[in-house]
């Protein structure tokens, strides 16, 4: 057991009779990109929400640097959250604000910046996702892909230690997908100590950006390894998922 990671231990979550997480054990190493793959509805988004403290787990622990954050009170939890940035699956932009104001929002709330410095930070974040010219637009004027990118900019702008992406590229065109993958990779490379956790369906992208891959299946992590391990594994479930075949151990 090492301390240079976020460690999920036996994490459990159920909704009524439905057991979503049945004991997830996973180490998310600091300073790397970990990608979690898994079928739709296996609880990947739920896992992220529990990690952010947006949902309470029914059992298990989340240990960051020796502290179990599932036991924290509200005030300490706020401090932990300040170290995280999250890109929601459906962007979750504030629809009462422009794109610029969305990205500026976390800065305005937490950092006392003068307007020029704030503008600079926001525009830098918008530039990294190719949205500088669209800052004045309202959220409902954006395409789905642009929303995703704006959400990435909003999560990046405070330079958090941990970045969680919930399917950042689902619904983007192939070129934009490659661009966002690059963005995740480049952000990672440009920020020493940054820890990224990406949830993805996109196997190609996963293998391109991941330092570590974990597969969630039926409420547990059934596979962990490097991208190379994924390519060479003969784990039947992982193989079927990676190759996208209909026949195999996963039945629909």
């Amino acid at each position, binding site marked *: 057991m090492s301390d240079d990671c976020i460690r999920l231990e036996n994490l459990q979550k159920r909704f009524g009779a439905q057991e979503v997480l049945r004991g997830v054990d996973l180490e998310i190493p600091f300073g790397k990109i970990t990608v979690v793959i898994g079928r739709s509805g296996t609880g990947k988004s739920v896992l992220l*929400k529990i990690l*952010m*403290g*947006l949902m309470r787990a029914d059992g298990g622990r989340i240990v960051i640097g020796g502290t179990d954050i599932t036991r924290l009170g509200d005030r300490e939890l*706020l*401090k932990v*959250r*300040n170290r*995280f*940035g*999250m890109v*929601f699956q*459906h962007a*979750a*932009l*504030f*629809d*009462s604000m422009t794109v610029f104001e969305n990205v500026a*929002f*976390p800065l305005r*709330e*937490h950092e006392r910046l003068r307007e020029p410095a704030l503008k600079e930070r926001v525009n830098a974040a918008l530039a990294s996702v190719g949205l500088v010219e669209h800052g004045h637009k309202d959220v409902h004027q954006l395409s789905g892909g642009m929303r995703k990118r704006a959400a990435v900019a909003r999560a990046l702008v405070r330079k958090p230690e941990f970045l969680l992406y919930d399917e950042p590229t689902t619904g983007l065109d192939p070129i934009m997908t490659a661009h966002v993958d690059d963005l995740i990779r480049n952000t990672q490379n440009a920020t020493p100590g940054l820890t990224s956790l990406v949830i993805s369906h996109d196997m190609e992208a996963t293998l391109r950006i991941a330092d570590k891959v974990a597969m969630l299946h039926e409420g547990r992590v059934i596979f962990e390894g490097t991208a190379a391990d994924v390519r060479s594994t003969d784990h039947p479930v992982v193989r079927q998922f990676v190759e996208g075949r209909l026949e195999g151990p996963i039945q629909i």
Partner: protein
Amino acid sequence: MNPISALGAWMLAAVEEFGQYAVFTARALWGIVRPPYRLRNLFRQMEFVGNQSLSIVLITGAFTGMVFAVQTDFAFGRFGARGLIGSTVVLALTRELGPVLTSLMVNGRVGSAMAAEIGTMRVTEQIDALESMAIDPVQYLASPRIGASILMLPILCAAFDLVGAMGVSYVATQVLGVNPGPYYARMEWFVDPDDIWGGMLKSAVFGFIIASVGCYRGFTARGGAEGVGRATTRAVVASGVAILVVDYFITVILAPMSVNRA
């Protein structure tokens, strides 16, 4: 399930729901007094609750005063007490109709908007997003709305009283031909500043009810557009009923104080 245990289950659910509402409201009120203070949000809500409700409140007030003048004349004219029309209607306006009608009108506009807006933010995960940025969503969203409503409803109520009184006076002296001299003299004799203050106090309480119920329903909305619609309807209905029920109890509590002065 037999009827008794069904009733029991229903009551338990109601008590639990009320408990959750109380906890939510306490959090929101605490959020008003503790930093960070987001005055911009407060002013924006004051503008929304106050300025934007003013025209409907003024129209409602004027016509309520006017119609009550006519109806009171119909009753009082039979025993020659028409000089009392003004004081009677203005008392009713300031003590009862002003706060209650203002609040019911504002509830339809503001309570529903709060539930819909916050409910939409809930089901589109914007509230989760706030939380993920280490912002207390109750303080950010509910506190300014509740604060603004507590501040603005009494002002709207005073505006209602004023145009209502003008409506009565106009109809009484100009349309019904009541002699203006005794009309205004009796008004001064009967209507006390305490009547006006009491009405404004009531409307502050109603403002609190409208905003806290609207925000609570928004925060607890679930499941897409339909869920938001349901939250909105429930907010307006619950606040409307609560306003009338609470009105009775405030009136009963305030009544002895105004009896003493006479």
